[in-house]
């Protein structure tokens, strides 16, 4: 028989997964990603140099935006809904610890993020394969690229990290504030190199130290962004790829652990 906490995580995760799956917002976000794919296809047809790269680049952006939006918007209401509707009271009146309940909720959210990622990734690869075939290119060399595969994995990790960060903020703030915090940190986090660059330009001073401090403390989302790597099909080194992977996992674990500590103390 499985340990009790695993059953709790699974059951809570399943209920959360089903709950988010019924949210119309999810389908609007997926529709938005499909529109980005359509725009990418159109742009690729208007391009003569490496059109398949443009298609993949824009497609990856669509997956990143859609995954991020789902993570932030669904993650911000994850606990709030339970507390507001008082369904959390029933769950916590059972022999269930608050951190384990929260882990179950995050598992459900992760399931939705993963499902969205899987469907959109499959759609992007299928669309690219069809485009390559229609343009007389070698399908294998276009879509079976380790760089593209790793870029997709890192996008998934980025969405999960955004989800864990938003759930963390939602333990002590309202859903709208959680969205603002997460989105703000994401915006700064994808520009940490610019923060360092600005600090270097300013020279040794307090503002420069503050900028360097921010770049050090905030999650560096630019590590997960494929950038020009996919465009030029530049391979990731093993150490680099493992480093990004471990960095993402460590941050997710850290946010979940901090959320677990906060929710223990929260009055519900």
């Amino acid at each position, binding site marked *: 028989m499985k340990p009790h906490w695993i059953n709790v995580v699974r059951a809570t995760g399943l209920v959360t997964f089903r709950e988010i799956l019924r949210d119309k917002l999810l389908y609007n976000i997926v529709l938005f990603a499909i529109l980005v794919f359509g725009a990418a296809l159109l742009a690729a047809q208007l391009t003569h140099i490496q059109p398949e790269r443009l298609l993949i680049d824009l497609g990856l952006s669509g997956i990143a935006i859609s995954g991020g939006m789902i993570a932030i918007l669904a993650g911000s209401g994850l606990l709030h809904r339970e507390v507001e509707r008082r369904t959390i009271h029933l769950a916590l009146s059972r022999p269930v610890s608050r951190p384990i309940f929260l882990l179950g909720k995050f598992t459900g959210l992760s399931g939705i993020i993963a499902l969205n990622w899987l469907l959109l990734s499959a759609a992007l690869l299928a669309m690219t394969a069809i485009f390559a075939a229609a343009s007389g290119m070698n399908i294998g060399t276009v879509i079976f690229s380790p760089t593209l595969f790793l870029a997709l994995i890192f996008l998934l990790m980025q969405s999960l990290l955004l989800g864990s960060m938003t759930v963390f903020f939602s333990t002590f703030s309202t859903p709208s504030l959680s969205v603002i915090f997460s989105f703000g940190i994401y915006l700064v986090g994808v520009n940490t190199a610019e923060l360092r660059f600005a600090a270097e330009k300013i020279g040794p001073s307090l503002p420069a130290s503050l900028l360097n401090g921010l770049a050090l403390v905030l999650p560096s989302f630019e590590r997960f962004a494929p950038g020009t790597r996919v465009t030029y099909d530049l391979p990731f080194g093993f150490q680099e790829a493992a480093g990004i992977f471990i960095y993402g996992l460590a941050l997710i674990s850290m946010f979940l652990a901090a959320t677990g500590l906060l929710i223990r103390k929260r009055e*519900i």
Partner: protein
Amino acid sequence: MNQPQDIIAEISGTSQSFRSGFWMKRIPVLHNVTLRIPRRSVFGFLGANGAGKTTLIHLLVGIRKPFEGTVRINGHDAATPEARALIGYLPERPYFHEHLTGSQLLRYFGALSGMSPEQITARIPEVLTSVGLLQAAGMELRRYSKGMLQRIGIAQALLHNPEFLVLDEPMSGLDPVGRKEIRELILRLSHEGRTIFFSSHVIPDVETICDEVALIQQGRIITCGPIGNFLAQGDLTTEVAFSGISLAQAEKIATFQSIREMPDGIRATVGSQDAVQSTLQGLLNSGARVLWVTPLRPSLESLFEKGTQ
């Protein structure tokens, strides 16, 4: 010699407060509450809205920890998994994940209660039958009526076969038929040997089914004990109904506490037991026809009013 009572839940010197406002100031909600709930009793917990009933229930089911004092269930601290495994809880106006079916909801709570999938599968038809919802097992909760939601709430509370049921306003928002059904269900569960603690601000509900009653007002327990003790506290009066004489004639025969004319005769209330005999004699002597004589016990409502004054 009195046998020591077998106590299932004990709340001792418990105070609770909530943080509120910008400065997170503590607002006291419960003040030094002490309560002992006998095993196998039906315990009614009466109080006006905002008196602190739900807060005390949250301490009892381990959702919150008291700021001061202790809450113990069968000797375990109420916040421990051991204590929570013994309790089945129905919150006030329960809200469930409405996208789930009755069966899926029970599976979810079964897993949270530590039951194996086999145990859950075997138990679901039993509890659904006991609350009369077997036919609605596959229906989404969004389609359930208020009464059905209350009953599925009781089903989830019963699922892991707990010894102690804590029901917060179980009859709230139900029509008379629904209230009757829930009352009968509580009595049936009590006959199965469970301890039932339920809060209410509707006095007849408590009066009909409880063995023990506690009254809370502004976070303080005003009074607590067997319901018989409460009802014995008030003055006993007797209602006499008669016809054949006028109201003016009747008023000359005896001093009534109250008297009123009805289409079928006159109804009057006699204050003391001693006065009943002489009043009846006087009525019969004046040619009145006595329709009925009914002793009136004090209602819990009047005692509630007394307590809250």
